[in-house]
């Protein structure tokens, strides 16, 4: 049963807008996704009918808001198949989730001389927090390289792992290459070496396998805005045993059990890690986005996206002088490329005049650019609403730019 792409496109109001007089062709989904009407409605409904602070209220609106917030936690729990709802911690986004773990795991478990492993294909958000933590805890920062196809060198990883390795952090899908990393294998290898694992799922939770227990991830982080939900909301999943053993990250309201001048004791999970008034509408909108995805069979979404992706890769490779990055066997949703003699910024800017929205630059992954030997790339990235027609528009746009630049 395939998904009904016309229905889906209809559900996203922004797809009907025009840019520079042309219909919008939105191919910047790895940066952020558009929102279905149901998500926008959930946000509006919250503000219009039951906006209130949560958890401690004694009044009706507060009960409604608290219930919606905690139900949202359960919706996320089910989507990632976590064992407990209190293993779901709401953050601002992937970046904050990773910073939380880097700080609190670091304080609890990382000592001078210990080691932390990331990969060369991480987003800065899964790179810099570990660098910072390693500096603070005097630990060694180690990096797994990737090969010319954009595939991690697992043999190097194997050699880097040792009994000083405390934690391994890697992205399930690379935002600059589209590579799907062999998450289960990496996690198993890390666990055998006695290390914990954080999975950066910012680019995978909406496109590939997202079952934290099947993966056996210790920590798992993603952003609501990249899975058709609102801005300013993200999720950190953590196994209860780890979360219980970590100190809190931020201090303030909600994360407290008892405060006296001499001593403060902390609340239980998940509240221990949710200091201050949260982005109340965030989880509500995120749950609406997940509910929206749940109206379809996830396999159908994957099949559709993969079809458009393979069509896109093939059509792009027909363009003269175009080089695609990330050519391993497993990839998803992301096409990154350059064209000989054309600057990525010029290509992106000129595509915009055709209504085609792509991203250009280093995509917050400077180590990848260094490894590829380029300053930046053009990146077209898919959401579930993209079609082969969008690819055609992209390729036509590229051809026009090539002509304009007289190359």
């Amino acid at each position, binding site marked *: 049963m395939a998904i009904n792409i016309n229905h889906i496109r209809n559900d996203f109001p922004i797809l009907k807008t025009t840019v520079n007089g042309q219909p919008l062709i939105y191919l910047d989904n790895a940066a952020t996704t558009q929102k279905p009407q149901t998500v926008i409605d959930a946000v509006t409904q919250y503000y219009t009918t039951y906006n209130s602070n949560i958890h401690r209220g004694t009044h009706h609106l507060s*009960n409604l808001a608290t219930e919606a917030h905690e139900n949202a936690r359960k919706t996320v729990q089910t989507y990632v198949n976590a064992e407990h709802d209190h293993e779901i911690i709401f953050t601002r986004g992937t970046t904050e989730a990773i910073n939380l773990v880097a700080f609190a795991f670091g304080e609890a478990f990382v000592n001078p001389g210990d080691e932390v492993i990331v990969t060369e294909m991480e987003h800065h958000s899964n790179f810099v927090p570990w660098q910072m933590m390693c500096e603070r805890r005097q630990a060694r920062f180690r990096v797994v390289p990737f090969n010319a196809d954009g595939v991690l060198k697992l043999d190097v990883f194997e050699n880097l792992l040792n009994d000083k390795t405390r934690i391994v952090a890697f992205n399930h899908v690379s935002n600059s290459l589209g590579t799907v990393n062999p998450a289960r294998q990496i996690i198993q290898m890390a666990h055998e070496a006695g290390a914990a694992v954080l999975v950066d799922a910012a680019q995978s939770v909406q496109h590939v396998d997202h079952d934290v227990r099947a993966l056996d991830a210790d920590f798992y982080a993603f952003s609501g805005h990249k899975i058709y939900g609102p801005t300013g909301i993200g999720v950190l999943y953590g196994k209860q045993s780890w979360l219980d053993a970590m100190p809190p990250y931020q201090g303030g309201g909600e994360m407290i059990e008892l405060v006296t001048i001499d001593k403060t004791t902390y609340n239980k999970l998940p509240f221990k890690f949710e200091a201050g008034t949260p982005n109340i509408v965030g989880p509500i909108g995120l749950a609406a986005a997940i509910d929206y995805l749940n109206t379809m069979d996830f396999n159908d979404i994957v099949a559709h996206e993969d079809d458009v992706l393979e069509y896109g890769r093939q059509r792009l490779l027909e363009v003269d002088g175009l080089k695609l990055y990330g050519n391993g066997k497993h990839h998803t949703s992301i096409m990154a490329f350059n064209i000989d003699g054309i600057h990525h910024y010029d290509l992106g800017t000129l595509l915009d005049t055709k209504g085609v929205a792509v991203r250009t630059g280093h995509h917050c992954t400077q180590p990848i650019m260094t490894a590829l030997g380029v300053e930046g790339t053009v990146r077209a990235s898919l959401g579930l609403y993209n079609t082969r027609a969008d690819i055609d528009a992209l390729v036509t746009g590229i051809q026009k730019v090539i002509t304009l630049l007289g190359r």
Partner: protein
Amino acid sequence: MPTINETQAQIVEDFSFLPQWDERYAYLIELGQKMDPLPEAYRIEENLVRGCQSTVWLHRECRDSQVFLQADSDSLIVKGLAALLMQVFSGQPAEDVEKTDLTFLSATGLNKHLSSQRANGLLAMIDEIKTFAKGCAAGDL
């Protein structure tokens, strides 16, 4: 003595005669006030169950694999809720207390209507009772 589920059904029926929430609270408060007073000797630290906003004393006893409960609270509404839990659970076989789902809270709408169960300590009370019943049923107590 009625079973846990018979009592739950009775509570749901009683509440159904009180459509207005202020009547329901008045009824709850009355139930609390009719409870046997908690002997001073039971008002001790280890019987304390803390909600965010109110304090509950919950005295538990296990006799012949049955659970016996007494309670009090500084909040009259919470005391009324405690009274309902006593009606449902006290004197029942520990195994039933452990295993039977509490359905009356949602059937009466009390769970939705009352401010978050964390705030009033209701959840904490139920947790304590269930844990105690488990130990009692297992013969640990």
